[in-house]
């Protein structure tokens, strides 16, 4: 990855609102997100020579369409040399960017379209959604028979994390409140009404100590971005967003096989990413941290080195991460407030980081943001990814 530092850039982004849109097709989100990204990049659609669709979860048939180049046909892309799906669950954002960058650096591609869409909000009933996530990434022999599912997984991480650090329910609720304050300013977010700590703590208990308003909501949505060579990027846009560093670790498949469900591989991933970028956490203007559940956003804040272990909860509670705070965190509202679109939850967070650095985040723009750290993780938090992006190459 050291070779890639500053060699590739994102030059265009697209995103449709996240929410429940039964009248729209999943293809609507894919085409519209891709269209916006192409327009934003200011390139001709036929300059795209490599398409990377992220996996779609709500319907296997639709996913097969993406594997077999349907998006190329729907968009009428004339000069695509490869359509290759990339999927590592919620970490696909990071994986797509790393692969797109490597292809460009190796000369295999010039302009790569990375795109995601899913219809988890209206393509499934509520119980079907729960049942899907009682299997996805969960071992069918050693975990499924014990009633494992994602609320329980978050409950397990919360119990141990709170035991080890003394973090309270109020601290955990503060993470969601911070996310919601950003979502209030995000027209693409599903939940935009103000939320208080008391409301979070009064909401229905799901899997102790996880409550309903600390959970994500499955949603429809789509987002896209276009990666190109750094040299070319400067001709296309005033503010290309350079990939400066990328670190990652795969630690497990089954949550029960992970030795530390309160840390995962984030610290190693962060060390790699910061070293490559030649930056440290103190240089970062925005931390776009993958949540899915607030506990994982809190863990990432600490493991990436922004605060000491066990101090993250108070950092959120003190408002440091909210609009106007000293370290804006997850400024689209995260999957817990923008909505959970499957693999796209992470793509939306990456797109938000790019949007902020491009200065296109309107009401929630963090002024003068130059460097962003982005985290991502997939499955049962099976991998930890950290990427450092910037408007300049330090």
């Amino acid at each position, binding site marked *: 990855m050291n070779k890639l530092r500053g060699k590739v850039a994102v030059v265009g982004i697209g995103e449709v609102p996240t929410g429940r849109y039964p009248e729209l097709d999943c293809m609507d989100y894919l085409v519209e997100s891709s269209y916006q990204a192409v327009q934003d990049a200011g390139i001709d659609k036929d300059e795209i020579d490599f398409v990377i669709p992220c996996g779609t979860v709500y319907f296997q048939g639709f996913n097969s369409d993406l594997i077999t180049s349907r998006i190329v046909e729907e968009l009428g892309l004339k000069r695509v040399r490869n359509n290759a799906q990339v999927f590592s669950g919620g970490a696909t954002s990071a994986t797509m960017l790393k692969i797109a960058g490597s292809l460009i650096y190796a000369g295999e591609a010039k302009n790569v379209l990375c795109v995601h869409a899913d219809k988890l909000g209206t393509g499934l009933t509520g119980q079907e959604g729960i049942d899907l996530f009682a299997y996805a990434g969960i071992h*069918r022999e*050693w975990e499924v028979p014990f*009633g*494992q599912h994602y609320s329980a997984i978050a409950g*397990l991480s919360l*119990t*141990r994390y709170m035991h080890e650090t003394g973090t309270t329910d109020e601290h955990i609720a503060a993470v969601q409140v911070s996310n919601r304050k950003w979502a209030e300013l995000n027209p693409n977010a599903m939940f935009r009404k103000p939320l208080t700590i008391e409301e979070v703590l009064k909401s229905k208990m799901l*899997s102790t100590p996880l409550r309903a308003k600390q959970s994500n909501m499955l949603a429809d949505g789509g987002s896209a971005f276009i990666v190109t060579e750094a040299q070319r990027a400067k001709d296309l846009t005033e503010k290309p967003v350079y990939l400066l560093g990328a670190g990652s670790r795969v630690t497990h498949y089954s949550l029960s096989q992970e030795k530390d469900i309160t840390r995962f591989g984030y610290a190693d991933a962060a060390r790699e990413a910061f070293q490559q970028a030649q930056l440290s956490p103190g240089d970062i203007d925005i931390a776009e941290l993958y949540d899915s559940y607030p506990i994982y956003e809190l863990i990432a804040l600490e493991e990436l080195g922004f605060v000491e272990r066990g101090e993250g909860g108070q950092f959120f509670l003190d408002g440091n991460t909210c609009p106007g705070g000293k370290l804006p965190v997850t400024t689209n509202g995260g999957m817990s407030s923008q909505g959970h679109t499957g693999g796209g939850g992470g793509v939306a967070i990456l797109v938000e980081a790019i949007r902020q650095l491009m200065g296109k985040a309107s009401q929630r723009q963090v002024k003068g943001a130059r460097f962003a750290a982005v985290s991502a993780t997939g499955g049962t938090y099976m991998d930890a990814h950290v990427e450092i992006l910037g408007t300049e190459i330090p």
Partner: protein
Amino acid sequence: MTDTNTKPQRPLPEKSRVAIPFWNAMREGKFIIQKCNSCHSYVFYPRIRCPHCFSNNLDWEEASGKGTVYSYTTVVNNAPSGFINEMPYVVAIIRLAEGVQMLSNIVDCDPSEIYCDMPVEVVFEKLNEEIVLPKFKLVK
């Protein structure tokens, strides 16, 4: 009207070839785990090759059945279909005395009595003639 015949079934383990001795032993009330003959590590869940040294020279050994609670959660709402009738139920990660970890349920207890690192021991829960699951009870 409730029709008990249409209640969603609890999912059974999708048994792997390598774990056949485990499931057979469970039916006889024995809780066995793998031990690598090359590097002497205990291994759970059962693997085709040792995850530490890559050897395929793995044997089975009766485990102590004792462990501690690494973490736990009580599922009270939004359970998967097959577990709606089981709520409330406790999902836990158990650290066995042999140093390996596994997912299970803690049964026959008031969930408020459970705490992290508490000792537990294995119990055998018969689901049907084929499947006996390893579950855990608190050691007080």
